[in-house]
C-alpha cells in the first residue's frame, strides 16, 4: 500500500471545502454592463410596472429589480424550455412552443430581460420568440438583450449563463450545465430585423465579445395638432 505522506485527510477535506465554496460562486467573473442602467432608467418613469425575466430564477436579481424598480417581476425560464426540448429530442417543436409560450396579453409588459437567450436558438425559434416578445411589450417598453459576436469554441461544453446583477454597472456571469451550446452569432442586421418594429436605442460592444442591445417599442404614430408625430420623443 502506498501512502502519500504529503497529503493528509484534513488536506483532502479542506480541498473539498474549497471546491464547494467555488461552486457556490466565489470565482465567477464580473463584467461591466452599460445598457442595464439605461434599461432601469427607461422603466423608472412608470408606475405599476411589470418586468418579464426570461432567464433562470436568480434570487439576487429578483431582489434587485424588486427594490430598484418596485415592480412586479414575472420569471419565465426559457433556458429551461430549450434544455427540455433538446434532451427530449424535440428541437423541431421549439419554435411552435415558443410561439405560444407567453400568456400575457398584448402590450402589457413594461420591460423584458432577454439576457443571451437568442444565442441558443435556431432561426425559426428566434423569430417565434421575438414575435411574442414584441407582441407583449407595451408601447415605449424596453427590452434588454445580450448577443454573442464570435463563434463559440467547438470544444466548449454546452451550457447556459446565469447573469447575476452585482449592481447597476456590473453583471456576474455564472455558467451552468445545459444541453445546448451557443449557436452561430447573429449579425447586427439580423438582430435589427428580428425585433422589428422595435428600435435599437442603445448598443454596446463589450470587451468580452458580447453585444448589449437596448430596444424600445415605438409608441403608435399619432399625429399631434402641430402635425408632428407624437411617438418620436419617447424613442430618443
Amino acid at each position: 500500500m502506498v501512502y502519500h505522506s504529503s497529503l493528509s485527510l484534513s488536506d483532502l477535506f479542506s480541498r473539498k471545502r474549497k471546491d464547494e465554496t467555488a461552486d457556490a460562486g466565489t470565482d465567477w467573473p464580473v463584467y461591466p454592463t452599460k445598457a442595464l442602467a439605461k434599461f432601469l432608467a427607461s422603466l423608472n418613469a412608470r408606475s405599476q410596472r411589470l418586468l418579464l425575466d426570461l432567464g433562470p430564477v436568480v434570487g439576487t436579481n429578483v431582489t434587485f429589480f424588486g427594490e430598484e424598480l418596485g415592480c412586479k417581476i414575472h420569471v419565465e425560464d426559457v433556458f429551461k424550455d430549450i434544455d427540455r426540448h433538446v434532451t427530449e429530442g424535440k428541437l423541431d417543436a421549439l419554435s411552435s412552443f415558443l410561439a405560444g409560450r407567453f400568456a400575457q396579453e398584448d402590450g402589457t409588459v413594461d420591460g423584458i430581460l432577454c439576457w443571451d437567450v437568442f444565442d441558443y436558438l435556431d432561426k425559426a425559434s428566434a423569430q417565434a420568440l421575438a414575435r411574442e416578445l414584441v407582441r407583449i411589450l407595451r408601447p415605449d417598453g424596453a427590452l434588454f438583450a445580450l448577443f454573442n459576436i464570435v463563434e463559440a469554441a467547438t470544444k466548449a461544453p454546452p451550457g447556459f449563463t446565469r447573469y447575476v446583477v452585482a449592481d447597476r454597472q456590473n453583471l456576474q456571469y455564472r455558467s451552468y450545465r445545459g444541453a445546448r451550446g451557443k449557436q452561430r452569432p447573429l449579425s447586427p442586421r439580423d438582430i435589427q430585423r428580428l425585433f422589428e418594429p422595435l428600435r435599437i436605442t442603445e448598443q454596446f460592444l463589450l470587451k468580452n465579445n458580447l453585444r448589449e442591445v437596448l430596444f424600445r417599442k415605438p409608441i403608435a404614430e399619432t399625429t399631434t395638432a402641430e402635425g408632428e408625430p407624437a411617438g418620436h420623443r419617447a424613442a430618443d
Partner: protein
Amino acid sequence: MWKRDEAVKPTGPASPASPATPATPAQQAQAASAPAQPESRRHQMMERDVVNIGKSVVIKGELNGSEDLTVEGHVEGKIELRDHVLTIGPNGKIKAQVFAKAVIVLGEVNGNVTATEKVDIRDGGSVDGDIISPRVAIAEGAHFRGSVDMQRKGGQPSQSKAENAQVQRSSASNVGSQPVAAH
C-alpha cells in the same frame, strides 16, 4: 480518534417528542436567539410555539392559526397565519393560497403566497405561483415559477428605497463571496 456516534449526532437540541426530526428553521432561529436558556426550558418553549403537521397528515380546507406552524404533510385549500411564520418542511406539499407574516419554503408549494414580511425559498424548495411580499429570497437550487410582487401599498417602492438600493449595491458588490440566495 474519530467516533462514529459523535459524527451522526444532531448538533442542535432535538425535541423529545421527535428525536429523529431535524430542527426546523424556525426552531433553529429560536434556539440561536436564546443560547443562555436551560436546555429543558428551550425544549418546552419550542414545543409550545411551533406546531408541526406531520408527514402523514393530509388537510383539506382552511387552516387558520395564531402561532408559528411547520407543515411536513399535505395541505389543500387555504393557510392563514397572518402574524406568524409558516414553514413548509422538505416533505411538505401545499396546494393552497398562503397568507402569513413570513413563509419559509423547503418543500413544494402550488398556489399564491402572500407574506407581510418575507418569503424565503430555500435550496430544494419549490413554488409554483405568484408571490406578494416586500422581501423575497430565492436560493440557488430552488424552483420558482410565477411572478414576484414586491410593491408596497400605493404602487410605490419602500420609503427607504434609496437606502435599500445602497445596501443592496454594497452587499451585491461582495456577491462573489456570497451564495446566490438573496436575503
